[in-house]
């Protein structure tokens, strides 16, 4: 499956998405965040990309990008989807109704990049310690040499 084919099959229902070629995959789809559930359902059922590979988030300072990788067993190919949401109000519909495996990916994106997923069943922090206040994968979060940190251990 090529990018043109994917584009052709999506053009009728989703005129607002852009399909561009991406080497090594079936293409990359850029879509508005509001159409997430609709588009992913169509990609899963209509195009046959029924296996969610990953959900990742990137911080582009002014806005945040979410990208989804799905795999089709029939086409033996990956398909990339990405959307951008403003950094001021980083929230998005959760993908868990369509792909249950998005659960932990979204938890991770929430705590590391600071994106809130609406209607997510369980948005507790996954990797960072309880009560950790920062989103480490934001560009504004800088790493320190440990000497600058005051070392404190909680009493057990």
């Amino acid at each position, binding site marked *: 499956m090529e990018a043109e084919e994917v584009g052709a099959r999506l053009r009728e229902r989703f005129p607002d998405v852009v399909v561009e070629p991406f080497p090594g995959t079936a293409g990359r789809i850029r879509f508005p965040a509001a159409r997430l559930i609709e588009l992913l359902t169509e990609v899963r059922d209509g195009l046959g990309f029924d296996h969610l*590979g990953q959900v990742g988030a*990137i911080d582009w300072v002014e806005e945040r990008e979410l990208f989804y*990788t799905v795999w089709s067993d029939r086409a033996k190919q*990956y398909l990339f989807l990405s959307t951008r949401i403003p950094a001021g109000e980083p929230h998005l519909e959760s993908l868990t109704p369509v792909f*249950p495996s998005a659960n*932990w990916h979204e938890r991770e994106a929430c705590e590391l990049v600071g994106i809130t997923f609406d209607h997510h069943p369980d948005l507790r922090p*996954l990797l960072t310690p309880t009560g950790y206040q920062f989103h480490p*994968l934001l560009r504004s979060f800088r790493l320190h040499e440990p000497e600058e940190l005051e070392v404190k251990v909680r009493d057990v």
Partner: protein
Amino acid sequence: MWINMGPQHPMTHGLWNLRVKIDGELVLDVDPEMGYLHRGIEKISEDRHYNEIITLMDRTCYVAGMAWEHLFIQAAEHALHIQVPERAQWIRTMSEEFQRVASHLMWYAAFVQDIGLMSPFLYGMRDRDLVLDLFQSYTGGRLTYEYMRVGGVRNDLPPGFTDQARKVCDWLSDRFVEYDRLCLGSDIFHRRCDNLGVLKASECIRYGITGPMLRSAGVARDLRKDRPYAAYGQVDFEVAVADGADVTGRYLVRMEELRQSLRILRQTLDWLDRNAGPVMAENVPRWMGAPYAPVGREGYLLKREYPKGVGFSAIEEPHGEALAYVVNEGGEHPYRVKLKSPVFVNIAAARQYLVGYRVADIPPIMGSVDVCVGEVDR
């Protein structure tokens, strides 16, 4: 009653916590708690040069370092538009397969300990050491290699390596017979493992599960076959599949994969004997990937600008499908590195294959999932 299995528990084989709600011996609910080994590899990568990230990749999954190096290097080469010479591709293929053998042997050792077999644990560790010795002879490391470079591999194989490697392959294929006798030959093994931790193919796909867990459910899906990378398109092997979707099925798949890996290894060793050539690409800057080059500091002085680009790679890691996504915004560090670990997804679905079984079944089931916490927490 909730009990914590972890972070210090013999079942975990790593640093994570499985909270289990039990009624007597019955498991009612589970809640995996990760992050005890979260080292921020993705964040550190943003501050590091490409070849410095290889160091981190080895430690991301400490039982499959070579596979993760391969994963990241492929994504980086994709992002930086670098072509890799053929011999380097074959050496990478060989390294990854040896890594698969080592990782599966480690899995075997840990898994049999979970069902209470004592001596095969040591047999697995002993035979794994032979593979690690091979790694040591051409990379210098046992677990962490820093062997692959952007554009190829660090150095060519030492003379006489292939003969030694063939000997190890022959020895191992003899040992696998004994392994099977110890496990499959035992009635207790079948009583313990048959119809245990069942996750059907449709559920596997719904929950995004890959690797031996998916193949044990009868889905013949292997990126080495479906989306061949490196030299996998030119070698002859079969995808190991089992039906049953249970612990025994996962055992059978992994043991068959070990045999297929030896088959691939023999082919790659033959190819490497016949063909010589460069192992490092021409168009890579010398400071970046040349053999024995001081890595990193020179690079900062040169301030080379890379073309902008996005790299994506997917490999069939011993645990399943691993994905890497590297964004390069023109600097000498990647802008963002996103790694997807197969174990991350497999553990996330723990509720699907643990609830309803007994407390005593948790170790074999989690053992058959083959948890490597390093790549889950990153």
